[in-house]
């Protein structure tokens, strides 16, 4: 046992006063000369139980783990540092705060104390680093997780790029400030610049039409504001081609559910759009054909059958009662027979022409001829009807007006317009036929002083599915086909038709035909 005075100095006094690390002073027999409260409390010992005792007896864990060699090293002047990572502890203290560790993790310094060039004792300093180690482990795990997240993010970015580069669509990623972070190579389909030329560029700096940039700016800001997907449709002209695109602007969020980027996927739908337009056109044509077919059946079913029924009846009466009938009665029957067959004939001619027009088999046989002479020929057939109804047909057509048209078809047009006028004009009325011409057009107008039509009726005149025949002022029948046929023929001549009418006052139909037909 050595005199404690040997070790006594202010530094040692200070050391033993510390309560945040453990200190033990040994003499060179390894007996405990001094120990501080920090260790005593942790080991649940009283100073009196340990002082003057050999450290290896008080703390048997030292020799159990062969760590006593460091004490012997110290006696030969060697200073030892023991890290927790290699030794965990030198003096065993249970760790009570949680279950992360069974024993406190210590770093330990074992230092020889010299006096007159000789080792007089050993100072052991023990520091609890458990909490720090737990924090290091937590930090370590956090860093590892971050590295993994980062690796995952990099992998995801790689996967995204691989996907985006193989898509047929243009893919562009904007940040919240509308700067481009990524563009795939498809961007070359609408510009001669490569994707790298777009990186970090703001939407306003791009070389696209201002109108298009404004549209995108507006829609992308809407995504930023609403955090919802926006659909954009736009047209864009590139290399003299008119292209149509649809774009989806998709919001992308980070782990905190904050909007981070906007992914824009643009699809070229030019071909689809064109196909759609074609399809719509086909559908319309199909519908028209269907309507025409219905009209044809309706005419055959009603407008042809009824007059034939009548003819059959007349023939039956004449056949069965010929002997009993007076000459006058026979003449009246024959007159009606003639009128009906003429109407049927007219209907059949109209029907045939219309059917040919629908089938597109009629080719315009364009001739240039004098309109006035032409009209005189048309009137030869119609004058009789006018006379029967006591209607005056007033002609005002210049002798020098020449027209280029298909004469057979124009004949059908004028015959239909005039017979309609006669049909709806009461006895004693007037039908006017006038014509004017300038360098570009010839305008022919048929006006009557007949019953007139409502606006609704005018609107349905040229619609196959709506056109209906109404009986004339003398009970004349019709099919409603006449004006439809007129319209088709005028269209074929690249002309136009216009109807003005007022109920009770009469109707005026103007047709305008170009002098030169392309």
């Amino acid at each position, binding site marked *: 046992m050595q005199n404690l005075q040997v070790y006594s100095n202010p530094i040692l006094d200070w050391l033993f006063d510390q309560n945040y690390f453990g200190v033990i002073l040994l003499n060179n027999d390894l007996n405990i000369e001094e120990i501080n409260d920090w260790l005593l409390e942790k080991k649940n010992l009283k100073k009196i139980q340990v002082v003057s005792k050999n450290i290896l007896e008080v703390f048997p864990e030292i020799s159990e783990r062969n760590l006593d060699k460091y004490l012997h090293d110290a006696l030969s002047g060697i200073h030892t540092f023991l890290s927790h990572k290699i030794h965990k502890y030198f003096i065993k203290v249970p760790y009570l705060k949680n279950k992360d560790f069974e024993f406190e993790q210590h770093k330990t*310094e074992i230092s020889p104390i010299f006096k007159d060039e000789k080792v007089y004792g050993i100072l052991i300093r023990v520091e609890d680093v458990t909490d720090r180690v737990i924090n290091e482990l937590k930090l370590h795990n956090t860093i590892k997780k971050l590295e993994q997240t980062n690796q995952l993010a990099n992998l995801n970015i790689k996967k995204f790029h691989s996907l985006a580069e193989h898509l047929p669509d243009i893919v562009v990623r904007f940040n919240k400030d509308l700067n481009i972070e990524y563009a795939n190579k498809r961007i070359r389909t609408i510009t001669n610049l490569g994707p790298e030329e777009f990186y970090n560029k703001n939407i306003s700096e791009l070389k696209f039409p201002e109108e298009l940039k404004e549209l995108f700016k507006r829609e992308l800001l809407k995504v930023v504001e609403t955090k919802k997907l926006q659909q954009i449709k736009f047209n864009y002209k590139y290399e003299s081609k008119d292209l149509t695109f649809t774009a989806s602007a998709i919001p992308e969020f980070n782990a905190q559910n904050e909007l981070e980027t906007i992914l824009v996927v643009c699809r070229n739908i030019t071909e689809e759009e064109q196909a759609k337009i074609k399809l719509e056109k086909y559908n319309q044509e199909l519908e028209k054909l269907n309507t025409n077919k219905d009209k044809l059946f309706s005419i055959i079913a009603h407008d042809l059958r009824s007059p034939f029924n009548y003819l059959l009846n007349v023939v039956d009466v004449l056949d069965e009662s010929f002997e009993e009938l007076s000459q006058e009665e026979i003449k009246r029957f024959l007159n009606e027979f003639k009128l009906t067959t003429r109407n049927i004939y007219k209907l059949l001619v109209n029907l045939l022409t219309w059917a040919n027009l629908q089938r597109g088999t009629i080719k315009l046989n364009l001739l240039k001829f004098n309109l006035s002479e032409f009209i005189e020929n048309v009137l030869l057939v119609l004058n009789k009807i006018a006379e029967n109804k006591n209607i005056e047909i007033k002609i005002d057509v210049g002798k020098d007006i020449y027209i280029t048209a298909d004469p057979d078809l124009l004949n059908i047009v004028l015959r239909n317009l005039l017979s309609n006028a006669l049909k709806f004009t009461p006895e004693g009325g007037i039908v006017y036929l006038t014509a004017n011409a300038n360098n570009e057009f010839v305008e022919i107008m048929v006006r009557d002083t007949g019953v007139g039509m409502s606006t609704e009726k005018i609107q349905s005149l040229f619609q196959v599915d709506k056109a209906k025949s109404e009986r004339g002022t003398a009970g004349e029948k019709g099919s409603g086909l006449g004006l439809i046929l007129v319209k088709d023929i005028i269209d074929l001549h690249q002309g136009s038709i216009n109807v003005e009418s007022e109920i009770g006052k009469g109707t005026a139909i103007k047709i305008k035909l170009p002098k030169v037909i392309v």
Partner: protein
Amino acid sequence: MLLTNRQKDAIAEVINISFSRAAKSLNELTGSRVVISVPQIDLIEVHKLEETLENIIRDEITSVHQIFHGSINGDALLIFDRESSINLVNTLLKEEDELQDLTESMKEVIIEVGNIVLSACLSMFGNILKVQLKFTVPKISLNSLSQMIQTFEFSEAEIKYALIIYMDFLVEGKNIKGTLILVMGLTSLEKFIDEIDKLG
């Protein structure tokens, strides 16, 4: 002052003996197979230390520093570049989940490794000189080469020399470079070399 090849060989031999003890200790402590060899020894004036070492250590350095005194005085340092120090700890402790940064715990392992190597070396010195050397608690520092050199114990106007011992730590088949530097005054060095000469 220059060392003859014979002196260099003799120093290398005694250092190798002490290092084999250090390697054995490390082996026992960590369970890793450790061999420490000394491929080269240099003696230079301490003011040339920076230019000599900057060719081999460019990065920030990790150093374990112990000051020794007794009948000879000086500084003993074990230095690694930053990457080698991380590599040494991860390999010695067979850490699977390696971190590429030095935590406090890792620094303490380096202190312990440095302490083992430096103690072995200084004990050997004491034995050769037949003196009891006292040395301070090992300290670790992470700084640049010039900052490290400024931490040396400079005394009086005596010319200081640095005995540079280049070391290869072969740990689990990996070769990790380290350097041990003993900085001493001329008197201490002459005493040491005298004793070395006697060995031969």
